[in-house]
């Protein structure tokens, strides 16, 4: 009797295992189906683009995604497969309500608002747009101002040290400095948190900030700081300020300004610093080197490679620009999913995502990857 019960139990276990296995397979299939949601990719050349001035300010399409390329900028209407593009000669910054083009010497800042006439902005610095906010980084990198869309100044703040790293969300501005100090400012430039340089410390150990990244909700920050060792330090929002939550040493550090960003889901940060590309898992607090020169993607031997983090492209993906300094330099956009290459776009110069579409910007046009859900 006892033996029969045991057999029944065993059969039940086997049955349960089979059911679990079937469910696992089904769920896995569902997981990969996410990838299959990419329904189509359409290439729109700049030669057939419409003038962005034709976008109505009163009725902007909800499916517009802004992009900044290398000589072209504009908007993609992903619902109607329409490209609006304008050329710029030197530099530019763009957001959903317009753009500012400027020259290297910062003597001619031209603001273009959708549906309005272009206007000149008086300011001596470089415009930098992030999270629907517009900033002007002062020409000496020792000050920053936030601007309205018409270029008027909302607030301005000066620092005693040159800015070496910056990131912003709709609610928070994070700034890192040459002497290793950091500041987190609120919407009106009010101080949320500051960590000044300790002048009492050994002055031969400056912990310069090379990069800073804020999570999309502004509740977490990652700071790349110091040499020998170089560390990634994590901060989290606590009340109205921030507190340091963890830190992790990097295997090797370089005194180079870095670009870095959080994935949209906040799971990790990717840091690009010269040739190096580093993955930092914010949940489990570990780092992994993704590239050092020729390690990531197909790179010509002997070529000098630079990586730049472009930004999050939804879910757990981040876009990275790889530039190989050959003659002429070649570019490639890598879409990394938890640091692993998900897409490789040779010849691309930029990428952005929104409204269920991934936008890959090339020198001659823009590719819309529809159904982009990560």
């Amino acid at each position, binding site marked *: 009797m006892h033996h029969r019960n045991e057999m029944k139990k065993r059969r039940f276990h086997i049955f349960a295992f089979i059911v679990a296995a079937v469910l696992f397979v089904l769920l896995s299939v569902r997981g990969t189906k996410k990838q299959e949601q990419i329904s189509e990719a359409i290439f729109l050349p700049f030669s057939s683009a419409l003038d962005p001035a034709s976008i109505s300010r009163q009725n902007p399409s909800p499916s517009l995604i802004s992009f900044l390329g290398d000589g072209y900028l504009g908007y993609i209407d992903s619902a109607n497969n329409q490209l609006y593009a304008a050329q710029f000669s030197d530099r530019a910054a763009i957001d959903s309500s317009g753009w500012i083009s400027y020259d290297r010497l910062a003597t001619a800042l031209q603001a273009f608002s959708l549906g309005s006439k272009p206007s000149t902005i008086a300011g*001596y610095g470089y415009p930098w747009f992030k999270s629907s906010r517009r900033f002007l980084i002062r020409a000496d990198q020792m000050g920053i101002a936030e601007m309205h869309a018409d270029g008027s100044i909302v607030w301005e703040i000066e620092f*005693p040290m*040159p800015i070496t790293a910056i990131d912003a969300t709709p609610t928070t501005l994070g700034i890192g400095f*040459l*002497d290793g100090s950091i500041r987190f400012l609120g919407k009106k430039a009010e101080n949320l948190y500051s960590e000044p340089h300790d002048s009492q410390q050994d002055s031969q150990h400056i912990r310069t900030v090379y990069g800073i990244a804020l999570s999309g909700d502004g509740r977490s920050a990652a700071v790349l700081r110091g040499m020998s060792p170089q560390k990634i330090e994590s901060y989290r929002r606590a009340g109205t300020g921030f507190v340091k939550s963890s830190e992790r040493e990097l295997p090797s550090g370089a*005194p180079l300004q870095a670009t870095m960003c959080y994935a949209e889901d906040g799971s990790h940060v990717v840091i690009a610093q010269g040739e190096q590309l580093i993955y930092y898992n914010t949940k489990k607090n570990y780092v992994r080197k993704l590239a050092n020169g020729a390690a990531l993607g197909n790179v010509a031997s002997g070529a000098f490679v630079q990586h730049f983090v472009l930004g999050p492209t939804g879910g757990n993906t981040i876009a990275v620009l790889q530039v190989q300094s050959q003659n002429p330099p070649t570019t490639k956009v890598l879409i990394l999913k938890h640091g692993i290459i998900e897409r490789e776009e040779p010849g691309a*110069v*930029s990428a952005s995502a929104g409204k269920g579409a991934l936008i890959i910007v090339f020198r001659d046009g823009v590719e819309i990857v529809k159904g982009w859900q990560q």
Partner: protein
Amino acid sequence: MKSTKLIAICFLFSVAFLGPLGAIDFQVPAATDIAGFGTILATQGSSNAKELQKTKPGFVPRSDIALKTEYPEIKAPSSGTVIYSQRESPVASVFSFPLGGAVAILHPESYISLVSGLALDTVIFNQAGRGQENSVKKGTSMGQAIGSGIYPERYFGLRLFDLKNSLWINPLFLASWLQDRTAPVIQNVWLNNENMRGNTPIELKTTAPKGKYIECQQATYEVSVAAIDSIIPGSRSFSAPYKIVIMLDGKTSIDTSFIAATCKSEGLSFLGNPAPSSKAILENGAYRVGRIPLQRGQHEIEVQVSDYAGNQSILKASLMVN
């Protein structure tokens, strides 16, 4: 004669004010044009300075010097360790910072130098980028001043930070090659009654005919001086002067200079003014140099403006205080 004066000033400056700076082996490259420390930042390479007077960004005294050199190759001014470098992005889709290609070096004497506006030498950049040896020797090529960031072609920026005293130091005191033969030009001097804001300030230059008194009320006046100096003879840039002294009835009332800028949490303090640095400048570009109390009676005021070589311009006026 002027060179001897300059050397003497440099020596006194080193000994009296900056102490250990005299020990730093720092080479400021010889220049054919200079926009000096304290010069209003926005005017260098900017065509919209007048508009900037309404909106503040960039209308501040500069804490670096912008130099134009005969040859574009820029060498490390002193030995040390590279603690930071930034480079312009090779494509416009990635934001580049305004200082362009820049290298910060930490020197053993606890100074940081920051050279900006360079196209960085790949050797320096590669070295740093691969996490190799980050030390540089004085004279190592850092890059080419071929136009990077906000600097025009052949110009680059140089700034020097004193870590122990939290000061941005005027690097021109380390330019031993400097030979300035022309005195600064005093464009105007204003006295602004602090208790009567909104009143037209008293202009000393245009309202001071010789032998006649300028009438004003008894009060404390803020003194502002508009003056320019051409550091390199025949160059196109005008700089801030070095030193401004106000003598009242033969006694020194104000003695201020662009020797350094002090770091405060609100930014930089120039000429003893509170931070941020925009507080050191009036909307018309004049420097706020200090305050003088004027009691009833007759007074003689003398404004002395000097450059780095000791060349001096003087403006005298007689005041009748009621």
